């Protein structure tokens, strides 16, 4: 029994020292080292890829923003309507395919989009009426952007092909031809849209 108590004490001591040592290495040195290296060599990415407009930070190219004005391209519909695209409130809907609430939400989003369209036979891309996994998705599919061209051209009195060309220029393709999906960054597209002259 005496042996076991001694063993217990010595193991406790070693465990404590190990925990303290590696807490300093893995919990302080490791993140600190990575932060210093990345802030030195890739400062804008390390800070969060923020985007400036007229010298003012207006968002991050990685994070979606809520657009509801018909003159802007809209992103994925947010889950939380009071605080849309908010870091602390963001979560996915968790609704299952069979859930009727999901069908109702999709229907509501379709109705809202269609109320701005004159051509009622248009087909809506799925990503424009379903919410994303992070609820902060900064992108939409190129189809969803093209779907909104009619609305934007008529609200801003722009030629339709001009807006279409803008969307085309903003499509980010699959990396090396097969990784990921084609997408358009909504914030970048809207920034470019504001500079477009009729």
């Amino acid at each position, binding site marked *: 029994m005496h042996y076991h108590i001694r063993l217990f004490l010595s193991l406790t001591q070693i465990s404590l020292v190990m925990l303290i040592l590696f807490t300093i290495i893995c919990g302080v040195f490791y993140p600190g080292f990575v932060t210093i290296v990345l802030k030195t060599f890739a400062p804008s990415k390390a800070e969060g890829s923020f985007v400036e407009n007229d010298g003012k930070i207006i968002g991050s190219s990685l994070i979606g923003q809520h657009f509801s004005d018909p003159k802007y391209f809209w992103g994925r519909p947010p889950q939380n309507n009071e605080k849309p695209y908010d870091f602390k409130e963001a979560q996915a809907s968790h609704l299952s395919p069979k859930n009727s609430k999901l069908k109702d939400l999709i229907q509501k989003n379709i109705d809202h989009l269609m109320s701005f369209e004159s051509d009622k036979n248009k087909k809506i891309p799925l990503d424009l009426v379903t919410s994303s996994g992070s609820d902060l998705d900064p992108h939409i599919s190129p189809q969803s952007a093209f779907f909104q061209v009619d609305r934007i051209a008529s609200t801003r009195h722009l030629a339709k092909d001009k807006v279409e060309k803008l969307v085309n220029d903003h499509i980010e393709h699959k990396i090396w031809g097969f990784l990921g*999906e084609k997408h358009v960054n909504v914030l970048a597209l809207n920034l470019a849209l504001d500079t477009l002259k009729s």
Partner: protein
Amino acid sequence: MANVFNGQKTFLSFFLHPIEHTFYKIIAVSQNDEMDWKHYAFSIIIFSFLSCFIMGLILYLQASIMGMKPLDPNLIFNTIVSFVTNTNWQAYSPEKDIHQYFQVISIGVQQFFSPAVGICVLIALIRGFTRKNSTKLGNFWVDLVRVLLYVIIPLSIISALIFGFLGVPQDWAKEVTISSLETGKTQNYLVGPIASWTAIEILGSNGGGIFGTNMAHPFQNPNALTHFLGLFLILLLPTSLCYTFGKMVNDTRQGWAIFAAMLIIFVPLTSLTINQENNKISSLSSLPLETHNTSMEGKETRHGIIGSLLWASATTATSNGSIAADHSSFAPINNFLTMFLMQMSETIFGGVGSGLYGMLIFVLITVFIAGLMVGRTPEYLGKKISAYEMKMVSLALLMPLFLILSGAWILLHFLNIKELSVNQGAQVFSEFMYNLTSASNNNGSAMSGITMSNSTSNLILGFLMLMGRFWIIIPVLALAGSLAQKNTVPISTGTLPTHTPLFIFVLIGILLIIGVLTFIPSLALGPIAEHLGLAGAH
């Protein structure tokens, strides 16, 4: 890696060697001071218990230091157990409950330790196979220091830097408020040590995100390249340990055989998940949509369906448990497949270390059954498998199965699960079973449609995680100890070869039978019922 555990030189030795020896001096451990299995297991238990204690203390104190709302004791228990057992089930909200710096020094540190302990147990088991007439399995502290210094820390530094250069932010923790382009609206951003967190989260099969939405969050996983790198890192250690195993037992064919069995189960199931997500849903066919299903609900545009499901299979097959899309919104049949991958006791790749020792348990069962079928003495790698080994194997094998089913029985007494979920019908039971499976097998992914963060579930899920980890580690070490004491039997014509395609398929058969038969009733009530309901709705 084999060189690291045998104490030989590697290309990092020239500058890590002095550091390694300084460590031994500080903790007063000699490299040649080896332990028997009881000593080894005792060290692991004390180490893990103290980890829990210190982590609990940090989480308890941080609330008062940062002036935040104190956490419920059951929530603290659940969280510490979750990270010490490599489960990384998150009942807390990373954005709201714990400050990022405190996450890094408590939870972040355990993300290094828990995979390292997993590897140590595996290495001890492998030593059981390789050593003859010995009671010693190596020194836990030496193994732990080596795994951390030579494998886990260098790999996570490299991958954190790559993540950073690909666009994952890494900054001192702060909140940024900006006004957005459409005037009059403000938006709050949280930045912090995201790249360094993500690297070890993915590499160590941990899976607890620094954001609640985990790898779906654009800061943690901003583009297709980080997604691809993440998939690679999830599979990196669990697969390369197969090779390490082969190398250490001096027969790489054994490692390749196990790897092949894992791959043969993994690849078809993954392809099936991607295929199933595109099924039409008839109740949506009247809507003016381009595709008549809900396949983009809960998924990110930049990853799409294929990327999201590749991640879902990889994260459930290995015990990673991070999510890149909402698992509750997947097609029901995919909930079945991902749950199925977890229910094979996390052996298809599995956790770092824990996956392979889980798999070796199944290999021993296969050897035993195959040996009985042909009337030969069961032996593996020259070691005879006798009654004592089979007892330990059965203990380790049956534990997760027992935990999931009894956990479900207990929790159903306390909770009205229908009220906890945003969904209805069979889906609720799927979510419930998924989360129990995830906790018992130390996976940590969640179907978040059901909210299981109330006090009772926190407590019971905490116990499931604890048992699911240590009730396997102890029999495995006992097994290793008893194997090491045996002499090897020379290979004769009577030996069943364990690297042939025939053996691989018998192994797969055993895995599927044990996985499928135990859980078919619960799977039939959950995802299968939901799938049939969806398909038969028209």
